[in-house]
């Protein structure tokens, strides 16, 4: 593909009044090529989550431009952003964010339903099967463990084959075994289906699974590592925080 999956150009995000407020992002430029996995790291308050929200069109940038899957969404109206959430982007979060009143398979089929597309039961079961939950299709979220809930959330993000998946601490609430399973699933999405992932994490071991790690400090990009190892990531992070 010729264009990056996500591109931020000189993005600034202010909170509060222009002259007294805080810049959560301060002139950030970043391009994540299609079919890659980028991890975003940094100390608390460095602007990681704001970057993710701005890149996904959940928050408006104060200045600069955001291009998502080849489309400039900087000032896109709500209808366009809604349409993109249905077809182009997906989300996976630390707290799973499943709809409590729907079963696992209904949760997975939900985004397609909102888009007016009829998802066949076979497709839905297939996706659930690929995350290892074929036998949990009719369970409600509260009947599933944390790891299982997160896998349902990933299945939901997979079904519409989004170009970009945004993940915020996807393994933050999971035990180490479940975390490993979830990371494997994310890796398959990038390698197998050519989708892109932008992921915020605190965990150097998780970040090391990505193709590149971007370090943020005080709203600016402080460093970048390609093909990182856990040690390298931990090292850089320690240096940033000291």
């Amino acid at each position, binding site marked *: 593909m010729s264009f990056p999956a996500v591109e931020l150009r000189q993005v600034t995000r202010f909170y509060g009044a222009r002259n007294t407020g805080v810049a959560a992002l301060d002139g950030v430029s970043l391009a994540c090529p299609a079919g890659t996995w980028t991890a975003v790291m940094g100390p608390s308050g460095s602007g990681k*989550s704001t970057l993710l*929200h701005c890149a996904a069109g*959940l*928050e408006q940038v104060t200045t600069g431009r955001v291009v998502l899957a080849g489309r400039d969404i900087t000032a896109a109206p*709500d*209808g366009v952003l*809604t*349409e993109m*959430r*249905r*077809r182009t982007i997906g*989300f996976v*979060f630390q*707290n*799973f*964010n*499943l*709809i*409590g*009143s*729907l079963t696992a398979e209904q949760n997975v089929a*939900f*985004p397609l339903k*909102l*888009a007016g597309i009829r998802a066949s039961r076979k497709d839905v079961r297939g996706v659930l099967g690929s995350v290892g939950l074929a036998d949990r299709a009719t369970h409600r*979220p*509260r009947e599933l463990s*944390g790891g299982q*809930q997160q896998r349902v959330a990933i299945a*939901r993000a997979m079904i*519409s084959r989004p170009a970009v998946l945004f993940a*915020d601490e996807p393994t933050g*609430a999971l035990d180490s075994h479940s975390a490993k399973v979830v990371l494997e699933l994310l890796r398959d999405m990038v390698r197998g289906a050519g989708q892109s992932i932008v992921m915020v994490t605190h965990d150097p071991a998780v970040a090391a699974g990505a193709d590149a790690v971007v370090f943020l400090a005080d709203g600016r990009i402080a460093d970048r590592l390609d093909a990182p190892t856990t040690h390298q990531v931990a090292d850089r992070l320690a240096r940033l925080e000291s």
Partner: protein
Amino acid sequence: MLRMSFRTFLERWQLFAGAVLSVAAGVALVQASFMVLVATGEPRIPEGLSRQEDDRIREGFVGAATVMGMTAFLAMFLAVFIVSSTFAFTVDQRRRDLALLRLTGGSRGQVRVLLLSESVLLGLVGSALGVPIGLGAKHAQTWLLVEIGLLPDWFAAPWRWQAVAVAGVIGVGVALTGVFAASLRAARIRPLEALRETGRAGRVMTTSRWLLGLSSAACTVAMVVWAHGANLIGAMLAALGISMVGAVAMSTLSPLVVPFTAWLLGLLLPGSLVVASLRDGVRRSAATASPLIVLVSLLLGLAGTFGSLAAAGGEEAKRSVNAQLVVTSTGARAERLPGIEGVAVASRQNAVDITITAGERRSVYSGIIAVDAADYARTHALVPTHGDLNALTGDTVFVGPAQHSEWIRAGEVLTAEAEGIPLSLTVVGGLPETLEPGENFVVPRRILPPPVWENAPTESVVQVETEQNPDVVAERIERAGIGEVSTVADWAEARAGRNQAGNMKILTVLMGLAGLYALMAVVNSVVIAGTERRREFAVFRVSGLSRPQVVRTAVAEATSVAVIGLVLGCAVAGAGLAGIGGSVRAAIGVTVVHVPWTLLAVVATGSLAVVAVTSGITALSATRQRPVSLIATKE
């Protein structure tokens, strides 16, 4: 989307229980009122009743129809009010769920559709429950209307199939109207809010809330001002309007008052958790306070209005006669009054049983008095709007206060019939409208054959000679065996009391209804608020509070909110009374206002008790689980 609404409905039924009950009660009352109303519209009055009896029954039917109309209107208003405040509250409680819907690709329209389909479900379930309850309500209403004397005991309102259709339309309509504003609010929730751990409580005072609050407040003030210049019917309508619109204004603006109260309370209890919770849960507080505001403003507003009007009527009656004593007797006995020592003038007013028909209008059988015009003019202060009482001789008639609005002009000839004798009476003047209905027609006694007035119930207004003591004269009249004597003040007070009694009956029906609704709404919002605070209570407990301390905090907070609701409700009722006071002043020249203190005390104690007990029970049940299990759960 419909399936999701259905599931939400089943899963979170506690959130909707109150709204379903209010719709059901609204549907039941509207349906029952509809059936009674239709039945009073086609009265089947048995043959062979006297004309007065027939008239009395017909009047009762009109009164019952009015009460039923007011009941249906009030029930719908309250149901819409409660559904809308419940939904505004639940939308806030479900912010994260709705944001999640937006995050997974739901459009604003889909969020609206979700809420509106929930409301249709709510309306259907409410109607289904309301129809059978309505049958019971119909019996209860009929019994009540018979009991208070508006309807005869043989009255029956037959079942009508149309009532089911009415119920369904009302149920769904009420639910849709109530949810509409909330659905617009919900559609504005941003997807990002799904990602916040606790769900940011949205700005409580939104632009639309400001607009609604301020415009209702302006409307209330306008009605208070207008009532000052209005006639009494207008002022009564204004008082009802002020109670309702004022309640909406205070409810929407109550979030502004809550922080102020929290600040006041903070002076007494610095650093208290109650104060912090009050300040933090502004929306929760507003949801609890608004049904109380409606309750207090409606009950006190209506009771105060009716009470003030009755008191003013008594005052006006006292001022309208220029005499000291009133004697009740028969027409024949009253003829002996002028002969009693010390009596200067005795204006005998015989309530005669004759018929007067004015053109195409309905014949009048009651409220017709026969007088001696000269005596009447000397003892009454009411100035005719046109004509002269001295002209009331021969075949003439004066239009009484009760017929003022019929526009019967001077010179018009009315047909009358007394004991089978036909008469033609020329209108020579008319009296002004009074607070109390008063007489329909005044005729000269001399034109009637004696049997017509001799046995008629008679009220004689007696002016005592200046050098005489009225008490002594009263004693002489009683000793002469003429009739019962009372002072003008006592007579006016008794009249006001009789009038008040009739109004109080109607008022009791309406107040019971409003009270029932407000109770449901208060319990509903306290329960929702308490249940949704499980996690917060758990945090309190892991921070070192004991379970009783958490419960006490919740009760103290809910009680403070109830006090805010009561005070704001009193403010609205006060505005209503100011309006009626102004109107009374314009009508009779003095301000007469009746403040229903007993009712206020009962309502205040009752609602504080209900709020305290409900919040206590809810907090107890919300803290039953061990705190750690609540804090650890994710979904």
